């Protein structure tokens, strides 16, 4: 991870926010590391944007304290927090040129004119806006406007850059390009980045850690691999990509592994978990394999194919177990063809360490 002395380390302790009777955010405690690229992920109304606005200082929290590099900044107004912010829709100053927009935070800080000129020119080169210096925001494309917003938010070297749904206004091809550029800017500046998104693939692709929100609660924080492979609960499991859920009964813990019954077969789950009794077993589609037979002791379940979707690189199969649970798997095209030719019944198998045991 890049190191930058100016990058801020943020600590949120017990942050809550109420709007009248509506609890938008509840008891959030979170550490954001120096130079981290953190995604706040969740559906709309989950509290992620509320938390970003509290970080920026635009909303006062109802409870809790916020620290930046050990200093309590809970009551510090936005203009004194020195957080760069990129808004949804960019919020550029429509009456100012690209140059004037980017120079604004430096002018506010009363930097010498020569320094402003130099840093603005550097920033314009860095975000690839050379030749557009004197244009107004209305004369720029969406991608160019976002570059201006990024340049404006980074030019004063803030300790943290906050981004609210930064890619939502861009079309798909441009989105990929801007995501790559954002990653590069993060590496070059070494600043702490915090961005809000409702798009799980965006969060997985960009962030070094992801904080997942729902109904005003912070459900889980972890690296993309941790939250994807070890979701803490059903919401996180289902929110991050496709997942198959099977009921698993009479779960017992033994020797670091859990065993339970699923459709009359004993299933083993290896990995950190302490769930017992009746639970839910979650398995990502890409970890499931189709076989004609399962070996004894192997995790497997019998299912019938109900539909297949050709995706080019792979085929997606929809299946139904004997007790009526719907599953999907993504398998190589030739495997899918064999499975479909071989009649209805197939075995779905998966490694014990790929199963995720969740409370029902």
């Amino acid at each position, binding site marked *: 991870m890049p190191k930058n002395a100016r990058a801020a380390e943020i600590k949120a302790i017990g942050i809550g926010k109420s709007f009248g009777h509506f609890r938008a955010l509840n008891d959030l405690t979170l550490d954001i590391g120096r130079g981290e690229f953190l995604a706040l992920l969740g559906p709309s109304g989950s509290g992620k944007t509320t938390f970003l606005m509290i970080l*920026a*200082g*635009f909303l006062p929290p109802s409870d809790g304290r916020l620290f930046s590099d050990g200093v309590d900044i809970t009551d510090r*107004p*936005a*203009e*004194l*927090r*020195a*957080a*760069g*912010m990129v*808004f*949804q*829709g960019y*919020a*550029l*100053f*429509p*009456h100012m040129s690209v140059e004037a927009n980017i120079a*604004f*935070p430096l002018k*506010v*800080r009363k930097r010498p004119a020569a320094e402003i000129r130099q840093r603005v020119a550097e920033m314009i080169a860095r975000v690839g806006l050379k030749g557009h210096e004197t244009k107004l925001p209305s004369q720029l494309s969406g991608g160019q406007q976002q570059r201006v917003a990024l340049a*404006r*938010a980074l030019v*004063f070297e803030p300790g943290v850059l*906050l981004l609210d749904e930064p890619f939502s206004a861009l079309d798909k091809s441009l989105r990929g390009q801007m995501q790559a550029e954002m990653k590069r800017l993060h590496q070059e500046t070494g600043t702490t980045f915090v961005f809000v998104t409702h798009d799980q693939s965006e969060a997985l692709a960009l962030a070094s850690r992801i904080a997942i929100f729902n109904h005003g609660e912070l459900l889980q924080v972890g690296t993309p691999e941790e939250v994807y492979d070890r979701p803490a609960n059903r919401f996180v499991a289902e929110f991050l990509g496709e997942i198959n859920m099977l009921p698993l009964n009479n779960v017992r813990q033994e020797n670091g592994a859990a065993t339970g019954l699923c459709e009359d077969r004993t299933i083993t789950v290896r990995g950190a978990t302490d769930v017992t009794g009746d639970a839910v077993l979650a398995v990502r589609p890409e970890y499931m394999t189709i076989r004609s037979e399962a070996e004894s002791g192997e995790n497997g379940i019998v299912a019938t194919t109900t539909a297949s979707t050709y995706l080019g690189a792979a085929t997606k199969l929809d299946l139904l177990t004997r007790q009526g649970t719907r599953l999907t798997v993504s398998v190589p095209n030739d495997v899918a063809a064999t499975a479909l030719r071989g009649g209805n019944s197939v075995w779905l198998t998966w490694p014990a360490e790929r199963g995720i045991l969740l409370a029902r």
Partner: protein
Amino acid sequence: MAPLLLFLAVTYLWPFLGVVKWSFTLPEPGLGQYGALITDPLVQSVFIRTLRICIVVTIASVIAAYAITVVWVRGTPAQRMAAEFCILIPFWISVLTRAFGWVALLSNRGLINTWLQGIGFISEPLALVRNEFGVIVGMTHFLVPFAVFPLASAMRNLDDRVLLAARGLGSSRTRTFWTIFVPMTASGIIGAAAIVFVFALGFFVTPAILGGGRSVMVAELVWLRIFQSPDWGLGAAISVVLVLFVGALMAVLFRYVRPRQLI
């Protein structure tokens, strides 16, 4: 639309064409009255006074209206109510009543002078009315509500996130107001100023009452020339020039501001 245009043609355009005819024919045919406009020192002084009063009234009205509109559009619910009263109540009171109300407040034995004398702040009453000051106060009071609507429309169209962005980038509230909020509502300021200025040019009742005959504006001069002198030809020529001037101002205004922004 068509019946309205017909109505305007019959009640306004037709009589106005008659006035145009007078300006070229009375007392004798020719351009003599327009020549007099340029040479007559009285007409000159009235034109200059009218422009001066209109400019001061426009500046005062737009500033006052801007302050009220900021509260009306961006204030708390209670503040909005208060601002709404300030805007609407003047609309419900006749222009005549308001002018005499100001006389009662501003005259030598009016409320303000008696109060200031009562607390010993002044010994002689201040000349607040029957002069240009009184005219400016009365006209500004009348015109502020008209300036509010174009300003409100500009302020409502403003994206709040732009203001947040400015503050997030380190700009104080004061600086954000002057460098972001005011420039972004410039179209409203232009529209408000134009409306107030054009209205002010043709004011008659308020300056007649609060000016007390000493601060005559163009419309009152026309009235004097036609009903008192009588010098119909000159009165008509002044009217024609006033209408052309207002028409030219409106034409320039609508090149820069869409009519929708004015209401």
